[in-house]
């Protein structure tokens, strides 16, 4: 008994613990860099514009309530609306694009039909094409159709993502066995029932990842709504913050408000990222190009 505890202790000490010190310090250095702006915004949002320039960076000011009140009163209380717009664009866009990706990815992975190859090539072209260079042509088209300055102008482009379809395709190929489909057919199940009760549940973890990627991608999107929407009541929070800071040049009083706005705008997504981090299947992405 005794000798065994001794060997255990020996084993434990023979693995030098100090080996982890330098990497840990390097990592913590990186951590400081990554959280610095967020911590700074936390402090700065409590300051009046005057305090911003005169007080220590990491000390609390006296203007937090004032900043929040000013922020939500700005432009007749539009801030809440901009947050809501971001939420509508991100939620609807992510839901629709995930559903479309599920259907298209499943069909491409498990069926063999005429025209499949052409669709795959078109899709891959869509993956490689930077969506941003599409934004201006999309604007020109939507202006012709008269749907700029409506929710549709942002919702239509973000509801289709070739990369999402591609991920769903990769995931479906790996997780839905074709034999299962055959077996369901033999058992007399219709194609739709097989898709709904066998395909979708198997695809679900992959679909969650596509949804999260797309949600955050749309929430963070700037150029598309910036181009499409010229009405203040239709812009998401990213565009609103840009317009606010753009005016700050002539009204520096807006600086402390913009900083508070930045804090309020990042809280929902950061919470979202942290809470849902464990549902991500990012191996889907790292393995998708194999």
């Amino acid at each position, binding site marked *: 008994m005794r000798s065994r505890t001794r060997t255990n202790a020996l084993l434990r000490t023979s693995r030098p*613990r100090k*080996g982890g010190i330098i*990497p840990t310090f390097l*990592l*913590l250095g*990186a*951590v400081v860099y*990554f959280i610095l702006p*967020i911590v*700074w*915004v936390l402090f*700065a949002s409590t300051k009046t514009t005057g305090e911003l*320039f005169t007080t*220590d*960076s990491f000390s609390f000011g006296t203007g937090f309530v004032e900043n929040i009140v000013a922020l939500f009163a700005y432009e007749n209380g539009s801030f809440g609306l901009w947050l809501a717009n971001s939420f509508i664009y991100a939620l609807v866009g992510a839901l629709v694009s995930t559903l*479309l*990706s599920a*259907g*298209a990815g499943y*069909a491409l992975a498990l*069926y063999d039909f005429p025209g499949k190859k052409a669709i795959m090539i078109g*899709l891959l072209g*869509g993956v*490689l*094409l*930077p969506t*941003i*260079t*599409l934004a*201006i*042509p999309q*604007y*020109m088209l939507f202006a012709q159709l008269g749907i700029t300055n409506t929710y549709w102008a942002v919702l239509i482009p973000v*509801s*289709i993502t070739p990369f999402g379809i591609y991920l769903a395709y990769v995931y479906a190929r790996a997780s839905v066995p074709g034999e299962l489909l055959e077996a369901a057919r033999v058992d007399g199940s219709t194609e739709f029932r097989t898709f709904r009760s066998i395909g979708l549940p198997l695809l679900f973890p992959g679909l969650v990842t596509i949804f999260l990627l797309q949600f*955050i991608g749309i929430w*963070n999107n*700037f*150029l598309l709504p910036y*181009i499409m929407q010229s009405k203040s009541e239709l812009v998401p929070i*990213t*565009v609103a*913050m*840009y317009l606010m*800071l753009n005016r*700050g040049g002539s009204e520096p009083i807006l600086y402390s408000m913009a*900083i508070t706005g*930045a804090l309020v*705008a990042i809280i929902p*997504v*950061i919470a*979202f*990222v942290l809470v849902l*981090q464990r549902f991500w299947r*990012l*191996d889907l*992405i*790292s*393995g998708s*190009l194999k």
Partner: protein
Amino acid sequence: MKTPTLRTSTISAKRSHNRFAYVLLLPALILFFVAFVVPIVYSIVLSVFSRRSDGGGAFAPKQDVFVWFENYAGVLADPTFWAGLQRLGIYSLFMVPILVILSIALALLLDLPKVKLRAFSRMAIFLPYGVPSVIAALMWGFLYVPAISPIYQIGEAFGLDFPPLLRGDLIYTAIINVVLWGGIGFNTIIVYTALQSLPKELIDAARIDGCNEFTIARYVKLPHIVPATILTGLFSVIGALQVYSEPQMLSTLTTAINSTFFPLMRVYRDAFAHDDLNSAATASIILAVATVLLSLLVVGIRTLITRRSSHAIQD
């Protein structure tokens, strides 16, 4: 008698299966058509036309005239386009390698067995992914202002005089820093996830053979993450060429970024400030073609490397 009926029935069954596949694809195809195909075709059409006044005079009615490749020649002959492209080149040449190298380094650090506070570090590194790039630019923009920034205050306390980043050529540093801050986390997690799929036995075997953590990282882990690394490289290249929101946001705080600083900003100016959709469409197409070609190049390099490494294994 039986066989033909069976065959026709399987063919018709297959046909009805295919019908279901088309039904599943249809909504995506319709949206792809509306949001991708039509705008691309439309911008190609726009790029070969020009709006010109009929006869002379500023008030003469304007007409769309077919001009072949005149717009392309016009954009390619414009020095501001090339200046923007050059700035984009400088920016990408620094940004992409730093992003890829730092992502690999952080992923390898996170993967070391003895590292402390792993979960916390991973979370903190990933955090900026949830921050919109315009807001990252806003926060850093303020951190670049010496009168406000804690970085300058700390520098001052140590007698260091950091130069202001929002001026002159240092503006590249300012933009690259914002992009790196927002992009490293996601790429690190992709590479880290790829590392997780490496069989533990392989690493244990290397350790028993006397490899230290560095040689394991260099000869076991690094070759394994090459595909994921090239993928992050590809994303970074595509991302680098469409950089827009960071410089656009920073331009509200500095005069060092003008309206044609990067090509995409010039496209925006043409379309909205100059009301010249033809030129904007032309420049969009040139940029898109360049991006796709570069992406294909990266994919090609990837195929070459994987082919060579699989040959090496066979040898």
